[in-house]
């Protein structure tokens, strides 16, 4: 009997090289890949928006957003992803699709997207300047504040972007990208950020 190992590899496993990149000096952009998360898409059934939101609130303790917002609670983030839809992002299986199945039974359809995305956290003085090359949406702090979210596109590829809590007084942008596009988009991000100087890392912890 063969001895299998079911090791997990992030879609950025090869492309991500931790350390500095691009222009020398103080890094203007910080890129951190967050690995191994649970991501469940919750889609309310016809006429069941209310029940779905109530079910989410009962389970997670927070109302699921009905507009483009991201809501962070202790052990998960709920991110709007479209009309009648949201993602539940978490770690460690507590809110995995199996765990949530009974919660939304009858009110919503669930789809496991844990492996369908890579998650990149972007911060730094020049994060907005860099993102302006990739994103057509307005990320001015008055417009895209903490908790704002968007289902949008970068480099002609669908992404989910939201602003998490500030860290060290700086805005933090979280980006979910399709796994099979991740490496390509990563290189585009690096090209966009290179002039500002970049520091690269990866983490197992949700921001």
């Amino acid at each position: 009997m063969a001895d299998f190992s079911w090791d997990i590899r992030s879609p950025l496993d090869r492309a991500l090289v931790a350390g500095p990149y691009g222009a020398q000096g103080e890094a203007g952009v910080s890129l951190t890949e967050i690995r191994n998360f649970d991501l469940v898409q919750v889609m309310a059934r016809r006429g069941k928006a209310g029940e779905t939101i109530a079910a989410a609130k009962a389970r997670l303790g927070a109302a699921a957003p009905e507009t483009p917002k991201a809501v962070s609670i202790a052990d998960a983030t709920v991110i709007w992803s479209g009309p009648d839809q949201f993602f539940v992002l978490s770690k460690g299986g507590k809110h995995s699709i199996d765990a949530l199945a009974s919660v939304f039974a009858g009110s919503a359809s669930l789809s496991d997207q844990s492996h369908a995305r890579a998650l990149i956290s972007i911060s730094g003085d020049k994060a907005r300047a860099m993102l302006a090359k990739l994103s057509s949406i307005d990320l001015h702090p008055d417009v895209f504040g903490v908790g704002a979210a968007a289902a949008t596109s970068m480099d002609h590829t669908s992404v989910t972007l939201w602003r998490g809590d500030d860290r060290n007084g700086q805005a933090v942008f979280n980006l979910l990208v399709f796994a099979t596009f991740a490496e390509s988009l990563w290189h585009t991000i690096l090209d966009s950020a290179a002039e500002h100087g970049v520091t690269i890392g990866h983490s197992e912890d949700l921001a």
Partner: protein
Amino acid sequence: MMRGDQANRLNNGGLIDRTAPLSFRFDGKNFLGFKGDTLASALVANGIKLVGRSFKYHRPRGILTAGSEEPNALVELRSGARREPNTKATTAELYEGLEAASQNRWPSLNFDVMSVNQLFAPIFVAGFYYKTFMWPAKFWEAIYEPAIRRAAGLGRAAGVSDPDHYDKAWAHCDVVIAGSGPAGLAAALAAGRSGARVILCEEDFVLGGRLLADGGTIDGLPAAEWIAGAVAELTAMPDVRIMRRTTLFGVYDGGTYGAIERVNDHLPVPPEHQVRQRLWRIVAKRCVVAAGAIERPIVFAGNDTPGVMMASAMRSYINRYAATPARRIALFTNNEDGWRTAETAIAAGLQVAAVIDARPDVSPAHRSLASKGGFPVLHGSVSAVDRGKAGVRKISVALTGGARAEVEADGLAVSGGWNPAVGLTSYHRGRPKWRDDIAAFVPDGAPPGMVAAGAANGAFGLGACLREGFEAGAAAARDAGRGGNIGSMPVADDEAFSLTPLWHVAGNGKAFVDQQHDVTASDVELAQREGFQSVEHLKRYTTLGMATDQGKTSNVAGLAIMAAVTGKSIPETGTTIYRPPYVPVAIGAFAGHHRDENFHATRLTPSHHWAAEQGAVFVDTGLWKRAQWYPRAGEKDWLESVTREVKAVRSGVGFCDVSTLGKIDVHGPDAGAFLDRVYINAFSSLAVGKARYGLMLREDGIVYDDGTTSRLAEDHYFLTTTTAKAGLVMQHLEFCRQVLFPELDVQLTSVSDQWAQFSIAGPKTRDLLKEIVDPAEDLSNEGFPFMGAREVKLRGGLKARLFRISFSGEMAFEISVPARYGEAMARNLMLAGKPFGVTPYGTEALGVMRIEKGHVAGPELNGTTTAGDLGLGKMMSTKKDFIGRVMAGREALTVPNRQVVVGIKPTDKARRLRSGAHIIPKGETPGPENDQGYVTSVCFSPVLDQWIGLGLVERGRERIGEIVRAHDPLRGEDYDVEFCNSVFYDPDGGRQRG
């Protein structure tokens, strides 16, 4: 008083940094200039007057303007791979080591062989080519056209790949302002103070616009001090962004503006990690166009002589750059403003030879200036320019009343008045309106959200510019919802305005309207004579206004001359349509990052890196990179590798990453009913745990896509699409769900990226799977029959989805695991399959096996075939409605002689069959009337040991056994082929069910 090596540089003044000398080369000679110079100003400072040759006649040309409207002073800037043809010396910022060369001359600027064209000028009139070069017909491509092409064109492109990088970015604001002259700065101050988010774009590298050359007093301060104060105030505002070296070139729908930032064009090469230029898409609620006005020439004989310069440009060179285009200047003006050049010249210590004023009266102040300066004021017009070696030498003047005069001068400043820069306001096909009082076109409305202010709106006085700009900025901010205190408006006096329109002075000799394209006043008259009276006809017949300056200095004069010869007014004559971009923009900037391997994004399969380690050859399939085959040492070509892979599968077991298939979760109580409507066959009747092949049509009855769909639960189907159509099918299904059938309770999600999916095929598939799958899972024919589909547990506990479906015709399964396990799955399949000789196979082997099995794919699903054509007509349910049902029944889609899928093999087994060969009946001469179809897909079949293929052939299925010609004139081939059953391999399907 002049500086040694820059003989025409004034000792004082100007916005140049005399502590920062810069050396540069022009036509191989070394010169010095200063930081703050343009190439043109540095050439002026060095006494260079001849800088280029014209397009058609190769006439010597100098510098006419000091801005982006320049028609003449075009150079090849830089060298090697960075050579940029047609670069305007008047906007090229000087840098250390700059290299430039004049263009459109051979062998040299001073001695240009092609200037012989001038001898033929009597024949080379507008439109001359349309009247000749017709005979003999073959000579056009062979002789005439190559000669014309070589002579035409201006500079030379580098001819090698552009080594620099470009990128693109988005910006958002309340108010974007084009231009930072008095109107633009005033607009920015008002909008910025009100709290608006402002972007101020200035194409120059210094803010200030005409103030830099013409000065003035604003709020009691000298212009330079006022600019410094305004810029300091704006810079301190966090939501005001000043973008120098940035031209707003176009306005697009929804308040989107295109702008080009020349990030590093003022350096020899861009610094590492930086781009040369950046394309901005600026999304703004409002736009204030404060792009100023362009001084217009007067058309007279010899007006293209080097040394003839726009009056305002002359002021720019003297005041802003402390460079003197001439020592003894004559001024030809029809308006008050032109006189400023005389004032400037005197202030700079230059001689004024004469002022030739076309107006009947000259103000007392100017009369006294003339007597103080000791120069005559001649009432009349310039009728000819006598050219010496160094350009302008003597000027003939036709005096009002008929007498003539001559003026000796080495420079002639010309002012015909000003044309507001109406480009941006007219790019949505707006037509500007004529204002008689200033004899100029001004904007008549503008695209939504845009307004013109200052000189761009026909307000030429400094005070008016500030007022209009300030008010426009305030209003724009207010419209954008900003209400802060805008403070006080900057104030200045308005200059006197007086102008007598004058477009063309009759005289002998060529009088140029469009200097770059060598269009003369007589060309305009000829066009009129030949019936090309519409301004668009005029433009197209003479090429007036189509040069790199886009007619900025020529269009209005051209149509004024046309108006005169047709006896119409200028507004009746009208303008041509204005087209973006406002200034020419490098193609590389529009492409940005998307070039070379970054042209489009790349999608990688979950096992990509593993396959790369195996040495796989990859093929582009849409955006995907897929393993095409896995060559082994010693294999001589792809065919040998692919044949080995096929044989390994057919005799043992192999696997292939098929994750590129589109995968869609279809959820909800009405999922079955929904699929019944999108597929031609039924899915509501499919049992849980089963898969079924489905075919979907477009509404026009033509096949759209196919794939297997499995029912994983009562309310959950897992649908697969072809790789090519994955995104489109998702869009189509969402359309069906949201638009056509909103009453159904269905939810859709793409899970294409969630699952790594592998096809495992071959008689030993089950043996291999048993090593991977938990022993408790029953994989027997009874426990997991053909077309079964369910979740299974793998050894180690990982959950997977297993589908017993076969594309290869072998005993086969497809297995899905969450994508981050994809690479581990590939390794484990290799490990588990080692005892069975497991072989990874690529898309080529996949394709071979599908052709052997007669499965249709992309080449057969070509957007014109019906289900019947593909041999799948029987799948069409008659018990339900579905997309495409009705249109599929149309007469021409159901006639018996349609081209349908059939198997094809050469009668000579050694023959290679090729896709794209056509089918001609035996004994017929190939022609459209007997072209009966073509070969769609081919492969070398290792099983049959010969080339085989599928084709779309008239009545193909009825003609099994018939021998016809495969006619392939493109490749010089013609051979006999036989029609056969399209299922070449295991037609009973016993192997896949076994």
